[in-house]
């Protein structure tokens, strides 16, 4: 089975024919059962291709990668990886964890603002110049705002329906405020020393932890409302 249109069916399917050719081929498809069937088959192939699922490698490739780029895969890393697969938190645990984060973040930002700094502590290998804040900060700030809005909505709902007690809501709100305060301090420090790899690293790390906190808090607040 082949006619002058057969080899154009993929282009037709992908919308890559000109208007005139497209119209001619559409008319041909109405008359040619074989071409119509072929087109249907091609469409199934594309659908199947787009439904292919990604699969992880059968073995963990990270130790090999870490070795090649000079990172240690120490015991702590292995233990941490195992722990990261699943988490269970109670609300008091979450609050306690956030307070630790907040204290650490605020303390580190305070040190960054006032004390001597060392870039080497956060650079296992020298791979790149310090990232410029402007390249990632606006995007992260925007989604942070969205996540905070979602959390506050969930907390308000929980409080209104009585399914979250006032103390829990107040604790989470307080934790969030202190995290934001730590971020604000680090941002100010970075504005006065924009080339600091340490401060860039610290701010990115605080944001990452904030996202972790928001994700967990949103889960808990939503589950309880």
């Amino acid at each position: 089975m082949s006619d002058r249109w057969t080899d154009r069916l993929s282009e037709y399917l992908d919308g890559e024919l000109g208007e005139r050719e497209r119209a001619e081929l559409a008319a041909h498809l109405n008359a040619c059962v074989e071409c119509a069937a072929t087109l249907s088959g091609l469409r199934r192939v594309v659908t199947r291709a787009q439904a292919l699922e990604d699969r992880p490698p059968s073995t963990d490739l990270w130790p090999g990668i870490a070795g090649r780029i000079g990172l240690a895969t120490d015991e702590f890393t292995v233990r941490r990886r195992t722990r990261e697969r699943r988490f269970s938190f109670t609300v008091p645990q979450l609050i306690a964890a956030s307070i630790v984060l907040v204290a650490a973040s605020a303390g580190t930002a305070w040190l960054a603002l006032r004390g001597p700094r060392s870039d080497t502590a956060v650079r296992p290998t020298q791979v790149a110049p310090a990232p410029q804040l402007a390249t990632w900060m606006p995007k992260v700030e925007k989604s942070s705002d969205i996540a905070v809005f979602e959390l506050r909505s969930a907390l308000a709902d929980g409080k209104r329906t009585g399914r979250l007690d006032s103390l829990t809501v107040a604790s989470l709100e307080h934790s969030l405020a202190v995290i934001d305060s730590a971020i604000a301090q680090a941002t100010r420090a970075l504005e006065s020393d924009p080339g600091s790899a340490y401060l860039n690293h610290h701010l990115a790390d605080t944001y990452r932890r904030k996202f972790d906190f928001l994700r967990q808090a949103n889960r808990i607040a939503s589950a309880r409302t």
Partner: protein
Amino acid sequence: MGLGVLTLTTDKTTAATDAETADVALAQSGDGRAFERLYRGQVSRIHSLVRRMLDSDEADDVTQDVFVRAWEKLYTFRGESAFGTWLHRLAVNVVLGRRKALGTERGRRSADDSPLETVAARNQVPEHTVDFEEALGRLPDGSRQVFLLHDVEGYRHEEIAKLLGIVAGTSKSQLHHARMALRKHLDR
């Protein structure tokens, strides 16, 4: 589940996506743990891409090459696209470089679709159970690359032509041949 206890698993929220952005910034400053998180978030996609474009037995090595290269080139990432998109492009370049280095045009596949006949004959099972990925892997190299880049990975013909050093018309032709061969495979 006790009072207030919740089992948390990874989800694709906005916050999670931008935790990745923060991890990129951390990794750019040399934080290996942040880079490991990025690796774990992307490895399935990258390994699948590599496995489909090359022989399966090379997939692990080349996937490692991709992440080593990503670590080395991370300072060039400016956040103009998603990190996953940037990494994916880098992976395609690593794969194509590997193919070139190995001289992959080893004549193991001809331009017709007879390799797909081999798949069916070997499996001796109803068509719906014949593995689509295996059939894909038996396409001629040129049309397989084009098919994967276009129909699986979403590249345009102009981009594929540039990557593979061919003209867009050849890319379209190769794609059609690949689809026709796979169509016959699915029709069995």
